[in-house]
């Protein structure tokens, strides 16, 4: 029997609500864990090698991890309340969810998803989870990956990776927003005189403002799409992460566009209507 840890996002040992509001394992590949006080953050689409290392270093789940999602690849009959043995430890099934198609790296497999609770954390042997995780990450390559995961070299590799997946996206979000505001500022600065001319010859502020918003939003959208492609290429081909549009990226896109509109408004009010006219006559 194999139990495969899949993809929780943010859970704490007491956060049972996540089980009811199951949202986080739809399209995930692997996880990494970080403990902040009583809260354990499991990173969606994180670097599974790092995950494996964490488990291998002390041979058990990180302190505070009491619940996890699992994907059962074998056709086993499990029900809520069942205990499953994993290595020397065991987990209790606390929820069931069927996801027929689980996208993995480069392939899609059918799998049954269950929610499990760690019963005996102290003696829990994470190797089964590591095996499961490697299977989950790439079914056809499971043995090779398992060998790699258990080897010392893998530990070194993992420690060299500077950012977890979620941190990487965080950095991308911040950079994207900062770049967006900067681009907007430069655009408005560049067309300030033209806009002031329009204003002076009788265009309404909203006509002028509309032009600025249109220009900046379109250009920022293009910039974002380019950034998105670059990020995708980086993630898939360089960092070997699996990447796709999820809610986080969607929020990022919305934030980027909103910041474009708001920064357009702020800059245009100041640069065009307050300073722009002065530019015309000096």
């Amino acid at each position: 029997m194999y139990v495969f840890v899949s993809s929780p996002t943010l859970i704490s040992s007491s956060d049972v609500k996540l089980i009811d509001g199951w949202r986080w394992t739809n399209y995930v590949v692997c996880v990494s864990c970080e403990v902040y006080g009583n809260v354990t953050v499991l990173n969606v689409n994180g670097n599974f090698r790092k995950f494996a290392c964490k488990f291998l270093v002390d041979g058990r789940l990180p302190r505070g991890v009491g619940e996890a999602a699992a994907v059962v690849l074998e056709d086993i009959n499990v029900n809520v309340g069942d205990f499953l043995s994993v290595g020397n430890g065991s987990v209790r099934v606390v929820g069931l969810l069927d996801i027929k198609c689980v996208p993995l790296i480069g392939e899609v497999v059918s799998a049954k998803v269950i929610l499990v609770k760690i019963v005996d954390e102290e003696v829990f042997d994470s190797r089964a989870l590591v095996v499961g995780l490697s299977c989950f990450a790439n079914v056809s390559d499971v043995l090779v990956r398992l060998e790699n995961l258990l080897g010392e070299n893998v530990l070194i590799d993992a420690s060299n990776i500077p950012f977890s997946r979620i941190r990487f996206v965080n950095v991308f979000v911040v950079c994207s927003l900062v770049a967006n505001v900067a681009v907007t500022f430069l655009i408005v600065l560049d067309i300030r005189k033209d806009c002031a001319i329009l204003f002076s010859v009788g265009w309404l502020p909203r006509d002028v403002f509309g032009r600025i918003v249109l220009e900046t939003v379109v250009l920022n959208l293009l910039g974002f799409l380019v950034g998105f492609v670059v990020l995708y290429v980086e993630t898939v081909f360089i960092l070997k992460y699996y990447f796709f549009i999820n809610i986080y990226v969607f929020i990022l896109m919305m934030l980027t566009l909103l910041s474009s509109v708001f920064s357009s408004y702020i800059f245009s009010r100041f640069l065009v209507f307050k300073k722009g006219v002065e530019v015309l006559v000096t």
Partner: protein
Amino acid sequence: MSFIEVKDLTKIYSVGGKNIFAVNNVSFSLREKEFTILFGPSGSGKTTLLMLLAALIKPNKGHIYVRGQDITKFSEDEAALWRRKNVGFIFQTINLVDFLNVLENVMLPLYTAKIDVHELREKALKLIKRVGLEERVKHKPSQLSVGEQQRVAIARALINNPEIVLADEPTAHLDLETGKKIISLMRELRDEYGTTFIVATHDPEIVSMADRTIKMRDGRVILS
């Protein structure tokens, strides 16, 4: 009633914590279709006064009545609409939009107005012909001489059939002869269209071409 009446107008700029009275308690009135020259040295407040008359900026104190309507009370939108209908502005630095050709620049003020594009185009072409640039319709501003650019600016200022044209140092970058031609053209257009022209200049050579001269110094009117 005067066409334009300026009452106790004051505009203060704050520069480095110091208040500078660009226009200081100015009052005068103008008749319709008058060709008026605001004459004074640089820094005397001519440009600021023109900007106030165009409702591009608001005064700190005082009022400007045009046909009895106080334009200093306008909101930003009302001022823009009023400018579109009633005012043409000619800048010292000309300020044509670089990436638009002559025809597009002249049509610019009425692009957002609900006017048939063909009608607008015909009107613009007529004006361009009137200022003598019919051969330059498709040229960009960079392909024109400064004098020609100023003619385009004049055509642009007249496209909306304004009652008032405000010109800020329109001859500043021109030689004397070309400058006089530009002023003569403005006078002719005043006669043809019945437009009131207010021209700011520091050039004494063209003062004699005005119906009326208002002299300014240090933000004050010293002779009206």
